[in-house]
């Protein structure tokens, strides 16, 4: 039984077998290539160089002017000061535009790469959650990976290059001063990151699970407030929530203390670098040179102050990459049928694209079939594998309409997933004599279609939500189909095919979503149609009417041979609507009687 009413705490572990190699691969996709990355980096460097040069040039200008030379000796420095001031701001602006543009361009690559990983996994290889919480977190994690080039790689590279250039520049003036600057930079980087790690790392690691736990308790508390009130359990829960919040508060403060120490270490090192530069420079340097070595460290440390922030951003990016790799592993877990690697998509276009009448439904024969869900490895209850099937033998003749009935937890949805090859099987499963395993899953799905228990409604118009099932359908065909599935009046009241259905079908009730899914399946004209628990999310009072409409719509006369229907439900249906009823219990077929 597919578990549908699940939603995850934000920090639920997804799978144990996530490999760091997988996460590294995700990170590779998040980082723009050199050609795309270079312009932003180039301008960022120019801006940082201008910032250091502005201060160095100003210091030299003032110290030299104090020696009261001819004005001509200063004019180059005057021009330099103005140019560097302009350059610092202008280059920074160009850098931000270029690097954001590159990051957004890379986002397209990253999304495509992650989507490609998800394709073979969905739906059986992904944790089963009703509201797609897991997937929305995956999507925000993917978006968060944009920070890798913007807030990690670029600041680190710029800081590194500026540190090296400044040390080299100071070396020309006075090698001893260069050495003190180098030592201060290295100590600051090390102290900043190490202090931070020592104090905050453990607290920081506890933060994400802590926030997850808090969110989980909040969802439980607010979602079940009526029950908690009715059962007098509110105070107990509030106390528990406050305890979780207090623990989270302690960890949060500790983590910020670490970040504050890193920033403070940077400030300290910057000051000490200036002090040491004066100390080693004072006995040996002329005025202008001394001013340069004294003031340059201030500008260098201002640029390099980004390092602790970049290190912090890196920790977040890495966590996001690990989560993405865990949810969407590169290797498909066993138990999920693998699509052949051929990229030949034209071969998989649904039958509905041709105008030929629907071919005759093949006989479907299951012979001693067994199936189980892949173990996704988490300890989260919502990831518990669904019910396994054992020794299922069943024949559905062409055009036959079979009801598979069973209690919750009998394995009905497992059967639906096997029939459309979302889930692998052992034993025999043939269509018109052809073994299903010998066909590409995509090819099989041209013959066997599915009306899902929770059909996805795309955030688009009613027309777009139907058209992808049959691309060249005319508006008249679509309207006729809406009429056929009992949505004619509703669609009319909403403004017809242009009606927007809202984010995740927010403007559509459970029964309407089922009818839209049915309309899609009929448009795609599958010779065999599996309908999985159409009334599961439907108001009890409307369930009967929906069931009746579904069965009459799938059988109403249209072009082509009779369609086979396998209806899966926990409810009985009126006898005249189906040819045969089977009962599934605990993963086994217990009766195969006729009606």
């Amino acid at each position, binding site marked *: 039984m597919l*578990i549908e*009413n*699940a*939603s*995850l705490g934000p920090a639920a572990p997804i799978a144990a077998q996530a490999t760091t190699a997988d996460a590294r691969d995700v990170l590779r996709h998040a980082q723009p290539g050199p050609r795309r990355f270079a312009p932003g980096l180039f301008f960022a460097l120019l801006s940082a160089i201008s910032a250091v040069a*502005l201060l160095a040039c100003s210091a030299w*200008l*003032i110290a030299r002017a*104090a020696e*009261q030379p001819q*004005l001509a000796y200063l004019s180059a420095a005057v021009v330099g*000061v103005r140019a560097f001031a*302009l350059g610092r701001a202008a280059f920074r602006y160009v850098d931000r535009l270029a690097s954001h*543009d590159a990051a957004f361009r890379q*986002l397209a690559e990253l999304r495509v790469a992650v*989507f490609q990983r998800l*394709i073979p996994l969905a*739906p059986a290889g992904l944790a089963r959650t009703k509201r*797609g919480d897991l997937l929305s977190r995956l999507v925000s994690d993917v978006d968060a990976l944009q920070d890798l080039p913007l807030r990690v790689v670029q600041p680190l590279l710029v800081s590194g290059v500026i540190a090296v250039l400044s040390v080299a520049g100071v070396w020309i003036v006075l090698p001893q001063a260069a050495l003190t600057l180098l030592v201060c930079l290295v100590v600051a980087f090390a102290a900043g990151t190490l202090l931070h790690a020592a104090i905050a790392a453990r607290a920081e690691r506890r933060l994400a699970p802590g926030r997850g736990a808090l*969110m989980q308790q909040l969802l*439980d508390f*607010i*979602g*079940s*407030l009526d*029950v*908690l*009130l*009715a*059962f007098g*359990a*509110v105070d107990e829960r*509030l106390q528990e929530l406050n305890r979780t919040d*207090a623990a989270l*508060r302690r960890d*949060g*403060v500790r983590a*910020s*203390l670490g*970040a504050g120490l890193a*920033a*403070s270490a940077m400030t300290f090192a910057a*000051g000490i670098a*200036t*002090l040491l530069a*004066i100390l080693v*420079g004072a*006995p040996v340097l002329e005025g202008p040179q*001394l001013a340069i070595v*004294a*003031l340059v460290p201030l500008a260098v440390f201002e640029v390099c102050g980004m390092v602790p922030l970049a290190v912090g951003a890196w920790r977040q990016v890495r966590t996001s990459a690990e989560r993405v790799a865990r949810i969407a592993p590169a290797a498909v877990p066993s138990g999920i049928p693998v699509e052949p690697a051929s990229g030949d998509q034209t071969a998989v*276009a649904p039958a509905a694209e041709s105008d030929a009448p629907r071919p005759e439904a093949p006989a479907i024969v299951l012979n001693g079939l067994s199936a189980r869900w892949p173990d996704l490895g988490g300890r989260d*209850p919502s990831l518990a594998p669904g019910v396994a099937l054992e020794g299922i033998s069943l024949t559905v003749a062409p055009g036959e309409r079979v009801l598979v009935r069973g209690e*919750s937890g009998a394995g009905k949805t497992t059967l639906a997933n096997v029939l*459309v090859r979302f889930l692998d099987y052992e034993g025999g499963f043939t269509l018109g004599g052809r073994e299903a395993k010998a066909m590409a899953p995509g090819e099989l799905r041209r013959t066997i*279609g599915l009306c899902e228990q929770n059909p*996805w409604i*795309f955030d688009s118009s009613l027309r777009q939500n139907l058209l992808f099932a049959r691309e060249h359908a005319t508006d008249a065909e679509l309207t006729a189909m809406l009429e056929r599935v009992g949505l004619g009046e509703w669609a009319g009241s909403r403004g017809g095919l242009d009606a927007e259905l809202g984010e995740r079908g927010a403007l559509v009730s459970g029964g309407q979503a089922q009818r839209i*899914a049915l309309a899609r399946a009929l448009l795609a004209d599958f010779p065999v149609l599996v309908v999985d628990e159409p009334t599961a999310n439907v108001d*009890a009072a409307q369930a009967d009417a929906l069931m009746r409409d579904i069965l009459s719509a799938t059988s109403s006369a249209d072009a082509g041979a009779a369609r086979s229907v396998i209806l899966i439900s926990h409810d009985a249906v009126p006898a005249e609507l189906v040819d045969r009823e089977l009962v599934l219990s605990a993963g086994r077929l217990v009766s195969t009687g006729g009606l």
Partner: protein
Amino acid sequence: MRGFLALGGLLGLIQTASIIGFAWFVSVLVTGAIAGQSLAELSGSFAALAAMVLLRAFTVWAMDAASAAGAARVKSQLRVAVLAGIRKLGPSWTQRRGSAATATLVGPGLDALDGYFGKYLPQLILTAIATPLLVLAIFLNDWLSALIVALALPIIPLFMVLIGMATQAVQRKQWDSLQHLSGSFLDVVGGLATLKIFGRERRQLARIRTVTDSYRTETMKVLRLSFLSGFVLELAGSLSVALIAVTIGLRLLDGQLTLAVGLFVLILAPEVFLPVRNVGAQFHAAADGMAASAEVFEVLELADAIPADAAAAAAAPAQARGPLRLDGVSVHRGDRLIVDGLSAEFEPGTLSVLAGQSGSGKSTVLAALLGFVPSAGEITLGDGPLTRTEIAWAGQNPALGSGSVAGNIALGSALAEGTPERVRLIEASMRLAAASGIDPEHELGVNGAGLSGGQAQRVALARAFYRWQELGTPVLLLDEPSSALDAETEARLLGSLRAAADAGAIVIVVSHREAVLAAADRVLWLETVHVD
């Protein structure tokens, strides 16, 4: 809050002093060295400089620590207050507002206050204290440089506001399309299984690319303007430093100024602009926190308007039993009249069914009995008003929480975990709810994840039976208890309800199922209220 501002102000003051001192001693040391003083002669100034460096590093850390602690405290206070407010507002309010949205506001929403209190506010304090003091320090040494800074400073907020207004107009225009574009990837990922059924999954790869690309184009249009404010900030800062450097240089050339003053002013000038720049940088983080706290305060205001919940404080269930009476009960939801003057009497020992079209207000009647919605008219049990402690209830939504099945069933129980009495009651309740097949030790995720719809419904029923047995509640309310059950399980459940009625309970079931109607002692049909 006031304490935090005072501490922040004090730290800001010390930090400003250390910045001025640092600039002063650097210029003293450099000019001293140029004048030919030996290191020994300068040792006092070196020591003072080191002290300034230490002091500044310390205040940076202390400011961070104080603001992090302050942010955490304010956040916790708000969280506790808003949870108490939500409790008062009750389930009908959370359902209207959406539980996920409310949980997001109380959880991650309030976390955004870290950005406001932890980062934005300290910089704002620093701006208020450091900026005028630094300008004053410059003014006392060189009025011309102070004038340049004083002229450049107001340009920054002015341009930021102008650019902010310009971008806001653009953003408003593009907001919808941006929202739509950014949500589109989630839409495709969520619908992947559906796309696979129709063989359309590969085709989405090209679409993801084009949609993400138009997202980039649209966002860059906004960013080109947004980044302008950063540009103005940097430009005002660096140009005035350049201007100061050049004017100082020219005046040094004429001998109008000493090198010590020149260096001092040059080091201070960039520091004047630093806090303002940081305020700008933290502004967006702060805006999120502000938005969340504004929402939280709205909730708190709403909750304050509601009188304290007296019924919840009532003591143990009334021992005196009698009939449950509804006398002219009416319920409004918003402007709509849902229940219009309902009068009915339910005797102990009877099994009654409330039936009617969907929308006829069956569940609303139960919500009124439970006190979840305000109602007019009188609801009494025996001699007194009906209270929640006298009701065992199972709603349409199982509303299970994380924890074990047994823990869910014994929700609100006074019996300690593991006591034989509790174990016995759990077992008996599961039997009554036809849920014996479910492992009581089975651990559930958030919102009861890990059970199928039918299993969850039976656990919720067992929870109601547990309360009925433990407290001996006179009233048992069940809303569509068999909607996810097959006929056989339904029959077993109806047997349990009959047994409960025979034991003297007032059993009221909302249902439209034939089998339930047939088992009832009496059926009340509710008509949808039509308003002319």
